[in-house]
Structure formats: structure tokens, C-alpha cells
């Protein structure tokens, strides 16, 4: 008798039918729980869409002197031009119309705006991560830098930096820097902080025993850095980068607000709020959420790949 058959035998003795057992296993699973919660959220969203859009729909009926039933009301509240709260399918249709069926180079295409935002997010994220790494290396290797810079790195984040965003943009525009770089700088400012904090922690994570071992090998500072400190900081770095990439997207979006709504998801939000185009606002929001989710997932994948390459599985 093999091990698996023993398990199977003991399983069948529990007295539940296989279908019942499969269902129990399903209801214990994470995916099932998440699906149920998501379905519940969508249902609540629909309910609120009907509820919030009803007053306007009623005035429309009254003006048009229309006879209406409850079914009419539900159908019409979910298909308004400028609803207070658009229904999920309206948002999805809007996204479909502005991405798939439209030329990506067109200024009305959501892909065009997403790309504008994404490019400055990525540029800011890359600069911010590099800057954060450099600062962290400096802080770990230089005591004066540690004592004087570290408190200010922390203090710099209690400043609501997004509030400075419009000014940075305007000032840089006045100097002659326009386009991608000013927005990317805001993302940089936001994203360097988690990287510095995580990287300092990571570079300090090798314990005394390991550092002593490097010493007995007569390793130079350089070798200790590349062969011990750098590899052991990787897990910390990637966790920080997940936070950093999410926050640099926020920075890019806010950076687009004060430029007078030229291009990008932030501009799309601002234009939508000027003209009361709620469906447009929501579709930009959903797009931003999707981009954030993808970016975090990509960093997470890189994390797993690097750790696997280093021989540590997560």
C-alpha cells in the first residue's frame, strides 16, 4: 500500500461524498473567498448606482411625462449619459471603446493617456530607485552621512510632497524643462524614500558572524559589499520597490493635474471633473488601478526570479 492510497483510504472514511469534499476544499480556498467578496462588491456597486442615479432619472421622467415601471427605472439608471455613479459595465464599455476600437495615437484614446502616465512613472521610478540605492550605500558606509542625512530622509516624507507638485511643474516649465522630466521628478521624490529605508535595512542585514567570516577571508570592503551585503539586501530592495512603483504612479498622476490638463491619466481625471464626465473619470481610475496592479505584479515577478536565481525560493 502506497502512502497516497493510505491517505485516500482515510479520506473516504470521513463519510463525505467526493463532491461534498471538493466543495468544502473550495470554500476553504483563498480564491473562492476573494471571488465571493468581489462579486459582493460589484453587486453593492450596482445597487448604489441605481440608488444614486434615481433622483435624476425621476426628474427626467417627470419632465417627459413618461409612465414608468420599476424595471424601466433600473434599466435607465444604469444607462445614463452622465450618471452620479456609473455602473461597472458602463465603465468597461467606455474602456473598451477608448482602447481597443480607437487609434492609440488619438488624443481621445485612453491608451495614449495611459502611456503618457506610464512613461513618466517608469522614468521617475528608475531614477528614484537608483538614487535611493546610492544614498543607502552612502549611509551604510559613511557614519557622518548616516547621522546627518538619515533623519532628513525621514523628515522629507512628513512633508506632503504632492502638494509641492504643481509648483515643481511650473518652476521647471519656467526654466525650460517641459514634458516628461518634471513629472518624473515628482515620482522620483516619492519613490526614493522607501528604497533608501529598505536598502539600508537590507545592506545591514548580514549578521556579525557573516561579516567576521568575510574578514577572516581578508575580503576588501568592495568584496564584502558585492559578495555579502548586496546579495543579502535583495529581498528588502524588492519589497521596497513594490511600494515605490505604486507611489510613483500616484506621483505621476498628481503631477499631471496642474499642467492644465494636457495629457495623461491625471489630465483625464481633471478634464472629466470639469465637464462632469463621470464615466470618463471612472474609466481613467480603473485604468490607473490596472496599471498599478500590473506594475506591482511585474516587480513581484522580478523578485521571485532574482531570488530563484540566487538559490533562495520564496
Amino acid at each position, binding site marked *: 500500500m502506497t502512502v497516497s492510497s493510505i491517505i485516500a483510504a482515510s479520506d473516504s472514511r470521513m463519510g463525505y461524498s467526493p463532491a461534498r469534499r471538493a466543495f468544502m476544499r473550495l470554500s476553504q480556498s483563498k480564491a473562492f473567498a476573494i471571488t465571493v467578496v468581489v462579486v459582493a462588491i460589484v453587486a453593492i456597486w450596482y445597487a448604489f448606482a441605481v440608488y444614486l442615479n434615481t433622483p435624476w432619472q425621476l426628474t427626467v421622467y417627470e419632465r417627459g411625462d413618461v409612465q414608468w415601471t420599476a424595471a424601466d427605472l433600473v434599466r435607465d439608471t444604469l444607462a445614463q449619459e452622465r450618471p452620479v455613479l456609473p455602473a461597472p459595465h458602463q465603465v468597461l464599455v467606455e474602456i473598451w471603446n477608448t482602447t481597443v476600437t480607437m487609434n492609440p495615437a488619438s488624443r481621445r484614446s485612453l491608451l495614449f493617456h495611459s502611456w503618457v502616465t506610464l512613461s513618466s512613472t517608469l522614468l521617475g521610478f528608475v531614477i528614484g530607485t537608483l538614487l535611493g540605492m546610492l544614498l543607502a550605500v552612502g549611509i551604510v558606509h559613511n557614519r557622518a552621512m548616516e547621522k546627518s542625512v538619515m533623519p532628513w530622509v525621514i523628515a522629507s516624507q512628513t512633508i506632503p510632497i504632492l502638494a509641492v507638485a504643481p*509648483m515643481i511643474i511650473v*518652476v521647471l516649465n519656467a*526654466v525650460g524643462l517641459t514634458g516628461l522630466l518634471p513629472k518624473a521628478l515628482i515620482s522620483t521624490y516619492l519613490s526614493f524614500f522607501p528604497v533608501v529605508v529598505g536598502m539600508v535595512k537590507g545592506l545591514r542585514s548580514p549578521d556579525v558572524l557573516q561579516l567576521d567570516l568575510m574578514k577572516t577571508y581578508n575580503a576588501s570592503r568592495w568584496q564584502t559589499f558585492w559578495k555579502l551585503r548586496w546579495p543579502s539586501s535583495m529581498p528588502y530592495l524588492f519589497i521596497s520597490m513594490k511600494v515605490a512603483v505604486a507611489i510613483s504612479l500616484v506621483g505621476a498622476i498628481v503631477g499631471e493635474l496642474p499642467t492644465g490638463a494636457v495629457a495623461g491619466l491625471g489630465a483625464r481625471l481633471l478634464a472629466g471633473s470639469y465637464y462632469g464626465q463621470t464615466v470618463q473619470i471612472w474609466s481613467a481610475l480603473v485604468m490607473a488601478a490596472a496599471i498599478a496592479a500590473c506594475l506591482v505584479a511585474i516587480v513581484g515577478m522580478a523578485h521571485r526570479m532574482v531570488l530563484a536565481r540566487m538559490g533562495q525560493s520564496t
Partner: protein
Amino acid sequence: MNVAVLTATGAFWAGTWALNSWLAGRTPSSAAAARARDIVVPVLFGITLLVLWEGIARGFGIPAVLLPPPSMVWERITNSVPTLWADFYQTFIKAVLIGYALGCGAGFLVAVAVDRSAFLKRGLLPIGNFVAALPIIGIAPIMVMWFGFDWHSKAAVVIVMTFFPMLVNTVEGLSASNAIDRDLMRTYAAGYWQTLFKLKLPAAAPFIFNALKINSTLALIGAIVAEFFGTPIVGMGFRISAEVQRLNVDMVWAEIAVAAVAGSVFYGVIALIERAITFWHPSVRGG
């Protein structure tokens, strides 16, 4: 270009840098000396930054429209206290504090409820984590549309922004107590509420304060950015965007200085409360 000012600035910078590395390199003789050094070194660094800024702005003759020297900003702050106070009251006292209290409170209560159900914990927590990483600030235009231009819409943005970090952290904190400790509570025949108040909440306190600290920064950002989307003619976000258009950059910097001080004090007060409440935690006891 004013060479004398630039030289003086450079000399000052070199001097404080040398002083700082000397201070940081010494082994302090007592604990008090070490603490004093840990305060003096960053303060010196901060002063150096201000002097550098002042010196560069004046030495290179950078127009005040681009980068006003700190002295000019300070003058502006002292000259326009009533305006700054009105903006501070509108944005911070009304929108930030009310939204912060409601958002954190709601997140906390929902977390306690979620903690009772293993199913909700499995289903809601990943979604909460996901939402906490989203650019929630984007709901600002929607909130302005729903709740009007006054502070209510800003408070609503702050509520949504602070809710999810609080939810996620509290749920994590509530499950931070040991199985052994929970078993001990059971052998004492402690009820749900007793276990909650005597074991789970104290164990969750470091997590909850972590969320409170994260939220203190988020709340101020949320309120200020929400004001970019429509506001009555008062408020820090309104003032910043309005004065930028009129190129009154010193006023913008004054407003930013107020925001920075308010944000730091807010953070500091929460950190102090944390030290008082979680005095038993290793990170506090270790000094």
C-alpha cells in the same frame, strides 16, 4: 553672480561638513552626550541646507519667481499669518482631522469585525492590500462632485485614503498574538471581549500605530490634492494652485512650510502617543 556670497556659503558648507563628520566619528563619553550628538548633527545638516539654499539663491541671483531664498519665505509667513491660519483651519482642522478620525475609526472597527470571520479574512484582506496600493487619490474629482466644494468632499477623500491602510494593518495586528497566549486566555475562561481587550488589542497596538503614522501623511496629501479639483476660496491646496498661477512663489513656499510643520507635528504627536501606549514593545524599550 555674487562671488563673495558664494564663497561664504561654500566656506560655511565645508565647515559644517567637517564639524559633522568629526562629531559623527567620535565615540560619545555618555548616553546623554550620544543623545545630544544625535540631535545636533541633523540640525546642523538642516541649517547647512537652508544656508546653502539662501546663498545659492542670492549668490547666483536666481529670480525669486523660481526659487525664493528662505529669508523671503519667512518674511512672507510672518506677514500673512491670518491668511495662512484660515487656510490651515479649512484644510487641516476641518478636512484632515475629521476625515482622519472617521477613516481610521471605520478601518479599525471593520478590522475587528473581519477578524471574527476566517472567511472574510481570506477574502477581504488580499483585496484590502490591493486597494491600499492603488492611486486612491484619483477619487478626488468624484468626491468633489458628490459632496460639493466645501471641506466635506476633502474629508471624504481622506476617509477613503486612510481606511485601507488601517484595515490591513489592524487585521494583521489582531492575528499577531501567539497561539500560546490565546490558549492561556482560554484556560482562564476569558470571553471574546476580554481576549480582545486584554490580549489581541495590546498585541495589535504596534501595527495600529504604524497605520496611524502612515495615514497622518496620507491624510494631509489627500486633503490638499482634493482641493485642486474644486474648492471655496480658502484652503492650503487652493492657495497653492492659485498662487502658482499668479507666480507668487514665496506664498506657495510659505504654504508648503506650514504644511510641512503641520505634517511633522501630526506625525510627532502620534509617535509620542505610541511611545506612551506601547512602552512594553522592544522597539521602544530598546531606545
